[in-house]
């Protein structure tokens, strides 16, 4: 039986890693994810896991060591944040291109400059096209649950693609929440043993990893890789269901919160969704048909399912915890709006940037978004397609 614990999001990730007990972890400390490898090191020192913890001199080396260990045939995990994730950049593409099912816990944080160690999605959104599966958790429980699922998803024979599970820096990573820690053996049983496809260490069947592909081969390999990533969508669904059967908490591609008949809909990802749910509850009590679509699987983006889920909406606001950086809206906005382009109901849709560098987002800010959506439906006019939440000075 699982037991209720009051621990931080980082500790949730560390306990998931302890129970998964991977063969190798190579990690370099960076705020706010440092407590994860730190706790893992303690678990190893206490004899609670027998993982080989490789301490390296940078995140580039951390991911490189993970790639080597995974190619050798090990089950491999790591954790990072922000600039550390950015330093892995080159190796992220190599991990996904080599189809190594590494699982990484990312505690999402702002990227410098200006230097800031607090939460936002600049890191994970910057790496959204590195070919990794990206799952974004709302809270500690989901960060824990999803890391366990991610092992099964990444290692699935039709997928064989690395996966990251993100949780929001500080909002989740350093906040103590009550969540359910499952039984060690039950988790082990759920993920099962890892049987690598082509381990380098199998000398009976020699294999080359990391060879080069000239122009007459590269394209085919990249499209083969894409198929593996796309296959993850069905596997995420299937594993989320299996997880529900085993532990009583089922997960899908996204979470629909009072969405069925919702007219005013917010689409967001991460910890802000907790605040949004509270606001939705309040609005519903007052007869306002508010709803939330929480993105859980961001890569591969389940565009068909998400467009379908937004069909009842009369107006939509997408919240991005990252600067659009010159694009027509943030990454979530671009995906959602693009998904809706192919459907008959194309509700007016607006975009907000919020929470950069740990900026607080409170119920009153979320409330103002729903107010704006109501106004759009009443007047039929969008005044601002892009705006900021809780920014000093009006954005124009």
């Amino acid at each position, binding site marked *: 039986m699982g037991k209720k614990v009051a621990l931080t999001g980082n500790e949730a990730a560390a306990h998931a890693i302890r129970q998964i007990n991977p063969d190798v972890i190579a990690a370099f400390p960076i705020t706010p994810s440092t407590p994860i490898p730190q706790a893992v090191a303690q678990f190893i020192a206490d004899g609670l896991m027998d993982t080989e913890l490789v301490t390296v001199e940078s995140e580039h080396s951390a991911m490189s060591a993970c790639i080597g260990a995974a190619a050798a045939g090990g089950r491999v995990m790591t954790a990072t944040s922000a600039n550390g994730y950015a330093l892995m950049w080159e190796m992220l593409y190599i991990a996904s291109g*080599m*189809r190594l099912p590494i699982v990484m816990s990312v505690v999402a944080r702002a990227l410098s400059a200006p230097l800031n160690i607090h939460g936002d999605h600049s890191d994970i959104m910057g790496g959204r096209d590195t070919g990794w599966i990206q799952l974004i958790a709302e809270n500690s429980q989901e960060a824990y649950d999803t890391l366990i699922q991610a092992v099964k998803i990444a290692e699935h024979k039709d997928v*064989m693609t690395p996966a990251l599970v993100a949780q929001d820096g500080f909002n989740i990573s350093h906040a103590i929440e009550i969540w359910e820690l499952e039984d060690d053996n039950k988790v082990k049983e759920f993920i099962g043993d890892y049987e690598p*496809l082509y381990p380098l260490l199998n000398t009976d069947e020699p*294999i*080359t990893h990391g060879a080069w592909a000239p122009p007459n081969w590269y394209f*085919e390999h990249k499209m*083969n*890789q894409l198929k593996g990533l796309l296959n993850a969508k069905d596997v995420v669904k299937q594993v989320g269901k299996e997880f529900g059967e085993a532990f009583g908490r089922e997960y899908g591609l996204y979470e629909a919160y009072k969405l069925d008949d919702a007219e005013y809909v917010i689409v967001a990802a991460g910890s802000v969704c907790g605040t949004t749910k509270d606001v939705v509850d309040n609005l519903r009590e007052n007869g306002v048909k508010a709803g939330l679509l929480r993105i859980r699987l961001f890569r591969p983006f389940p565009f068909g399912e998400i467009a379908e889920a937004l069909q009842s909406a009369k107006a939509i606001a997408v919240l991005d915890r990252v600067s659009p950086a010159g694009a027509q809206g943030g990454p979530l906005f671009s995906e959602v709006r693009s998904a809706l382009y192919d459907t008959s109901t194309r509700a007016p849709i607006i975009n907000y940037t919020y929470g950069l560098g740990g900026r607080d987002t409170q119920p009153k800010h979320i409330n103002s978004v729903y107010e704006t959506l109501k106004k759009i439906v009443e007047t039929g006019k969008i005044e601002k397609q892009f705006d900021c939440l809780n920014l000093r000075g009006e954005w124009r």
Partner: protein
Amino acid sequence: MAEKLLNWDEVLIGATIKDPGNSKSYETGSWRVERPVWNPDTCIQCMFCWVYCPDSSILVDENGKMAGIDYDHCKGCGICVEQCPTKPKSLKMILESEAKGKTLKELRKEAFSK
């Protein structure tokens, strides 16, 4: 050996290679700007060139002796010439453009007669 070009859904996952040694079918010699020419008359069979060649392009005969250059794979880096200890050197670099259409014998004569 001509390689069989596979479709995207036929290639091995992660661009892994199951048949070791298939780099033999990739002729890196086509990149060459200069080629080493070998002079068996002054060669002392020290095998330095064989040790240092980064592309395993020094041919060795059944008696373990230096037997020439594998021009299908030699990239023309010149390391073998650099390492050759004889005076004068028993390997010399020649521009590909000047080697064109000439036999090995003619090339040797040109390179080492002076």
